[in-house]
């Protein structure tokens, strides 16, 4: 029985009046916590792993769901994916290897000479839990559904030249060909996150003419057949997974059952981790993690991450349409103070718009440091002595709020007066749609670890995440050229040119790349840092 954390009781007594007042209402039970509820917070059974997430998934239908990271992470583990990333160790911690993508449920996935037509070969005799065999027809039906849903998959397929269901051709029961309009170096990575297959025979039983793709059935029924099967799902509270023995591929699940419980408040996740009620807290915030490092029985797994924190400056609205004003803000941002105060030093300063560890990264991409005089000089160069504008960030994002406060007080010294505006998700999305946000803090990870994908999502005309409304004909031209450049050294050549242009245009203030830290019980092992932010649960084991 894990003893309740000693130091937290001491801190309660420190609470002075309030604590005493409330303690007076209940005798202070000394000694070990005798938790009367019969909840299973007893010793972690060797075969069960308990993970806490911040919100319950909004739907089980991977095609028609909204952009919900918890759900996408869960799908990665419960839907049969044909191919997936390998694993490599870097600096003592294991991370997903984006260059080594291997078949898991499928037998092989190889391109033709021109890398335009990709052939997927299925293993024989792989069965869904319903007993139906996984065949090419299932792949075809699943991808036709993805195109019909016009959601995530359709969006990514467009970057590798797959725009119409007709481009997916069934050759025989166990072979499917993907005919791309143009060859692309991104195909393997993009297919790794999109090539999932439904049990189409089972699904068609629930399709109706009003609902051809059985959306209602999919939304309600947890899927099975991936590395794990969903055995129990209590709405809004908890999801239980058990390893799928029918998985034919390498690295089968190490833990027999995994229980994912929903704990929205970060403070509660931390309490339960300390008390041993959960093994992994996916929703803890940086300050909790720094404290948990000092707690007995808890380890913090940390690994380099490609998640970037930046301020996107709107290049189409005054005064940030003037590059000198953008440079002024770049010089006025207190990079070291943010890394120290907000992330407790646990973040890497970055010198380019391209994230660290992404092939093609170069030091010259973002030559700006915290220097108030240079900031003033840059502002003067733009013909202004002082400007005022609005810095937008997400209401419920603590880090962004702290960064905003620090940037505001430093920028003021350089004559840049910033009004802080926290926005709820819907208003933020609306104003981004209307492109009327002068400055906004963004933090996030790219799904594919390749500069072409970065340009596709954030820097070309009309890209969805291009909140800076940045366009540069040279960049557009390089982006088109990169589609067909497969050779890595030629691609790196292109990326160097991109970063030189970015150093000049500076559409973003690139702040830092915070490391990924995951507080877990000491007994947990096998964590693989996911480049796309979607945890692979099959590598996880617990030795308690």
């Amino acid at each position, binding site marked *: 029985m894990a003893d309740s954390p000693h130091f937290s009781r001491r801190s309660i007594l420190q609470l002075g009046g309030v604590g005493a007042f409330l303690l007076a209402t209940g005798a202070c039970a000394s000694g070990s916590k005798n938790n009367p509820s*019969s909840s299973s917070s007893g010793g972690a059974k060797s075969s069960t792993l308990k993970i806490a997430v911040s919100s319950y998934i909004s739907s089980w239908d991977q095609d028609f769901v909204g952009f919900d990271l918890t759900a996408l992470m869960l799908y990665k583990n419960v839907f049969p994916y044909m191919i997936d990333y390998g694993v490599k160790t870097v600096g003592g911690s294991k991370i997903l290897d984006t260059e080594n993508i291997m078949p898991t449920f499928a037998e092989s996935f190889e391109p033709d000479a021109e890398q335009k037509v990709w052939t997927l070969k299925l293993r024989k005799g792989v069965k869904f839990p319903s007993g139906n065999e996984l065949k090419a027809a299932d792949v075809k039906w699943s991808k036709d559904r993805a195109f019909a849903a016009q959601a995530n998959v359709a969006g990514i397929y467009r970057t590798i030249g797959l725009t119409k269901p007709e481009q997916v051709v069934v050759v025989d029961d166990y072979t499917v060909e993907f005919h791309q309009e143009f060859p692309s170096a991104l195909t393997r990575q993009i297919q790794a996150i999109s090539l999932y297959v439904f049990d189409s025979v089972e699904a068609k039983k629930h399709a109706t003419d009003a609902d051809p793709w059985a959306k209602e059935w999919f939304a309600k029924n947890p899927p099975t057949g991936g590395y794990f099967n969903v055995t129990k799902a209590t709405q809004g509270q908890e999801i239980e997974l058990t390893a799928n023995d029918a998985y034919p591929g390498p690295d089968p699940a190490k833990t027999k059952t995994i*229980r994912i419980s929903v704990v929205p408040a970060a403070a509660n996740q931390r309490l339960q981790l300390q008390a041993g009620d959960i093994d992994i807290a996916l929703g803890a915030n940086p300050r909790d993690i720094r404290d948990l490092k000092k707690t007995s029985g808890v380890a913090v797994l940390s690994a380099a991450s490609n998640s970037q924190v930046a301020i996107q400056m709107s290049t189409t609205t005054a005064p940030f349409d003037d590059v000198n004003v953008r440079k002024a803000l770049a010089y006025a941002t207190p990079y070291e103070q943010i890394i120290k105060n907000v992330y407790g030093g646990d973040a890497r300063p970055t010198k380019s718009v391209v994230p660290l560890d992404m092939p093609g990264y170069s030091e010259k991409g973002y030559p700006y440091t915290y220097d108030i005089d240079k900031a003033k000089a840059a502002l003067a160069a733009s013909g202004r002595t002082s400007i005022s504008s609005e810095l937008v960030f997400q209401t419920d994002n603590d880090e962004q709020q702290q960064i905003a406060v620090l940037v505001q007080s430093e920028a003021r010294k350089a004559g840049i007066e910033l009004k802080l505006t926290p926005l709820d998700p819907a208003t933020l999305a609306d104003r981004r749609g209307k492109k009327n946000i002068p400055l906004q803090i963004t933090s996030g990870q790219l799904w594919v670890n390749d500069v072409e994908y970065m340009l596709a999502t954030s820097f070309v005309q009309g890209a969805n995440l291009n909140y800076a409304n940045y366009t540069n004909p040279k960049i557009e031209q390089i982006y088109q050229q990169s589609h067909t450049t497969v050779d890595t050294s030629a691609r790196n050549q292109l990326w160097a040119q991109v970063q030189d242009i970015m150093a000049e245009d500076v559409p973003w203030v690139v702040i830092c790349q915070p490391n990924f830290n995951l507080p877990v019980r000491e007994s947990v092992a096998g964590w693989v840092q996911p480049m796309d932010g979607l945890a692979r649960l099959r590598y996880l084991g617990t030795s308690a």
Partner: protein
Amino acid sequence: MRVLRFVVRRLLQLIPVLLGVVVLTFLLVRVLPGDPIRTILGPNATAADEAAAGARFGLDRPLWQQFTDYLSGLVTGDFGTSIQSGQSVGGEMALRIGPTMELVVLAVAIAMVIATVVGLWSARHANRAGDHGIRVLALVGNSMPEFWLGLVLILVGYAGLGWFPAPSGRVDPDTDLTPITGADALDALLTGNMPALTSSLWHLALPVLTLVIVIVAPLLRSVRASALEVLRSEPYAAAEAHGLPGRLLRRGYLVRAALVRLPSLAALVFGFSIGSTVLVEYVYSWQGFGQWALRGLLYRDYPVVQASVLVIAFCYVVVFLIADVVHAMLDPRVRI
């Protein structure tokens, strides 16, 4: 009979109010800035994807047509599909109303029992030390912000003393509770699942305590005030002057007269508690109705917001109706 006719008449009066609420919400949520569609699009979505998603939810059609569709759906009990989750709003709501109602009903019931017992005692010992103490204590409880109180109770009850379970979820999944109404303790009772019952009651303890502390004061004051009014009234003095024994005086003349005003105040407090459960649920990660409605609001999930507001309003007016009927039964002077 009489009560039925009164209830039917009041229900008919509800329709314009609820219709007003539906129209007001429908317009209000569309006037609010914020785009419900962009939040569900992936990083690579294009304008075409946005338009397609919008069409899927019928947002491309003219406003009045959206309203008529919504109304015709409402009549058949179809609240539409949630933009965020793609599931039917009715289904999602059914799963979440149970836990919140259980919390609020339990808290209001307990608070009313405490208020009645303590209120009557306090009135009978008016202006003595005990009476003053109770009133000030109740006021302190009523002055606390419920989210802050919840936090402190978790800190003391779970982290410090360990008497109460972790503030996550409502019942321990291992007890295999089969959900019927969604209200865990009630379902456990119905299915006779004892371990689930004890587990859900322990999970309910702190949130209910938080709510009770906050809402007991107004109820206590009302019972005490009306009890005092009865004790100092002519009829009570007349009964006492005719030498009726204390027990008969209390049972026959004090209790019923003092509780006449309690139902309508309980309804008001019920309405107030629905508001504060949104905060209590957040702190106790109760996954109830309040959080779901709030999330719908933050993401402008039109069908969710419209459905949640309508249900809250409906609960509100139904509770007032029940209060009026109970009031009429208690007080013969009220003709219905």
